[in-house]
């Protein structure tokens, strides 16, 4: 449940790199650019040179073998700096879908380019507020796919999409579709976090190949849970950063001739938030550990991690704005960027209410 020597080293290396190449100002510049790319190519190249997209994958499969614990440590650092890159969409989600749902041949052909970062893929699986296998309205017809997906991360900037669909028998399968394939229409949207998402409609869109077979249902569920855990790690990083920035501000800001951090009303609110933060952190580490040890109740771990990090990220972002006073509502302060990112993260891959409900069902409530 805690990082080993190698994982600590990896985390520190990535943190140093991000401090230099992707501090929060980088997100600001990205956000304010006219064409608003999903990420800076320079930054992504640097991350790939460090091996970040291959961090989790075992060495015998061409990865660096740091496991989910290692990738989670990276995502916490990413969350602290709001660094924009396709780590979540491609290096985590798309990789997991191919690894868990693909045939040996597909894995051999597709995974290496995602591990090196030479290719970027994203997963289109959401039609409402979260993925629900029972309500999919994207259908497979021979080598074509028809239907719509929303909130696809980095949609317009990826090389290809992995799209969940049902075949004629109602079985879940996943179509690999190039973004410029005939029949694909992407409506890109920059959301309040400054990042790029897209709604995608498929009209008899040409599918390069299908990931299909018995393993797809459980494999996709696992890939989704894995991504949920990694997103939770990012949210944990953001929450920690908010707490630390707020504590620092309270140590320095003076009113009534004293540091405002001496006020018990503020101290107790932050202490309570800190308790909740550490419960969320323990849940994230336990979930990363569950991934690495192939625990059979991964879904419970994932839903708990997402709910607790979602709730504390939202709460701490509100508290941080309030405790920064008037400065907290200015765009000049970074607090607002975390506030907005927290709301987007809460919606991605199912919000707290959804995950709480799923957890309740899993626990027989």
């Amino acid at each position, binding site marked *: *449940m805690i990082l080993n020597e190698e994982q600590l080293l990896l985390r520190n290396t990535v943190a140093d790199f991000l401090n230099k190449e992707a501090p929060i100002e980088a997100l600001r510049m990205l956000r304010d650019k006219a064409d608003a790319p999903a990420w800076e190519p320079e930054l992504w190249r640097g991350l790939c040179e460090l091996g970040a997209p291959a961090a989790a994958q075992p060495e015998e499969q061409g990865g660096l073998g740091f496991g989910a614990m290692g990738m989670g440590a990276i995502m916490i650092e990413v969350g602290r700096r709001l660094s924009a890159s396709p780590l979540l969409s491609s290096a985590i989600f798309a990789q997991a879908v191919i690894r868990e749902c693909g045939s040996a041949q597909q894995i051999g052909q597709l995974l290496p380019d995602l591990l090196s970062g030479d290719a970027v893929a994203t997963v289109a699986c959401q039609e409402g507020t979260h993925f629900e296998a029972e309500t999919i309205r994207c259908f497979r017809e021979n080598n074509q796919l028809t239907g719509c997906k929303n909130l696809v991360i980095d949609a317009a900037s990826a090389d290809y999409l992995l799209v969940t669909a049902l075949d004629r028998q109602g079985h879940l399968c996943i179509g690999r579709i190039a973004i410029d394939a005939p029949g694909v229409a992407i409506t890109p949207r920059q959301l309040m976090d400054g990042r790029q998402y897209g709604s995608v409609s498929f009209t008899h869109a040409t599918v390069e190949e299908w990931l299909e077979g018995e393993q797809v249902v459980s494999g996709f569920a696992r890939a989704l849970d894995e991504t949920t855990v990694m997103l939770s790690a990012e949210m944990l990083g953001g929450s920690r950063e908010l707490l630390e920035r707020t504590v620092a501000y309270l140590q320095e800001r003076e009113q009534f001739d004293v540091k405002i951090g001496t006020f018990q009303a503020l*101290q107790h609110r932050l202490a309570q938030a800190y308790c909740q933060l550490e*419960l969320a952190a323990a*849940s994230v580490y336990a979930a990363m550990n569950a991934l690495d040890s192939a625990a059979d109740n991964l879904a419970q771990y994932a839903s*708990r991690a997402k709910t607790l990090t979602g709730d504390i990220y939202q709460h701490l972002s509100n508290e941080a704005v309030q405790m920064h006073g008037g400065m907290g509502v200015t765009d000049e302060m970074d607090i607002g960027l975390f506030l907005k990112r927290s709301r987007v993260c809460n919606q991605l891959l199912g919000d707290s209410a959804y995950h709480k409900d799923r957890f*309740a069902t899993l*626990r027989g409530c």
Partner: protein
Amino acid sequence: MDERDLFRQEVREWLETHCPVSQRQPIVREEQIWAGSQATFPSADAQAWFEAMRDRGWTAPSWPAEYGGGGLDPDQARILEQEMARLRCRPPLYDMGLWMLGPALLAYGSPEQKATHLPRIVRGEVRWAQGYSEPGAGSDLASLSTRALDAGDHFVVSGTKIWTTRADVADWIFCLVRTDADAPKREGISFLLIDMHSQGVSTRPIALISGESEFCQTFFDEVKVPKANLVGELNEGWAVAKELLKHERKLMATMESITEKVDVGLVELAKSRLAVTDQGRLANADLRARLAEHLMQADALSDLNELIYRGMKAGQLNPALPLTLKYIGTHEQQRKDELMLEILGADGLSMMSDTPELDRMVRNWAYNKAHTIAGGTSEIQLNIIARRGLGLPE
């Protein structure tokens, strides 16, 4: 198999042999074995279990063997704990001396004090009470006014202590007393061990909202206490007290596992009493969501404990982390109690029904209100977390 595995196997076999089946179920308050000259055993099985553990020194597994303890290292102690949990063995002995005084004596006691008191604690021969709070000194403990006057070879102690757990049956009490009235608050306090059978000691039980009276007020009327009973240096009792409070905080955080184990199984309780949908879910969606929240928090707390343990072992523990446990643990327990009461509905409103199990649950709900007050109130905990944990200014 490495040493640890061998030890685990040995422990498992030993427990299988020595823990009677009747002692492998959740503990209820009436069947707890409290130490002391007035100790009683609810059954022959309970006595056999206690004696077996006592004879191995496993009533105090990690204390040094020279004082009668088990002499286990932290890993071994944890293995014993895990194996006992696995078999659901009841705690063999209950005593404040075991939980709090012992660790403080190990750190601050003289060789004579350790040799005199520790073995008797391990063997459960003496029941200890804690004399900290006073009617005028609660959260502001350092303002205590029970005084010990120097009378040559002994002190003369006068004053009163409150919330002394079962002082009416205790044999000894460890007390904070004022030995220098002129020094600043924290610098005039000493730590004294007092024989409750001494002339001038009297007690009065306090009735609680749970219908019980576990706590007493204890009065000292010119009680003679030998100077050999001073722990640590004169006027430096605050350091001993702080050491001891650390153990109390730890204890309070795990209160649920040590005290009453009515393992309520809230989900089962709710489903057996309330409407359930065709899909087998609780029909009350609001309650269902709050139950899920509680279960998540409880799981997270157990992961946090694990994380702290592993962090400590690897030497990379953030010292702020353990400060959170008492606050989190006691509040989660109360949330659970409230959910239980809500699920019981009108059936949970009597403390004197004809279902003892139900009564016990309801009494616990009331009793556990003390957990966020005793051992440092939640508000004091938050002060500590904010200042020592987060580094906010005093």
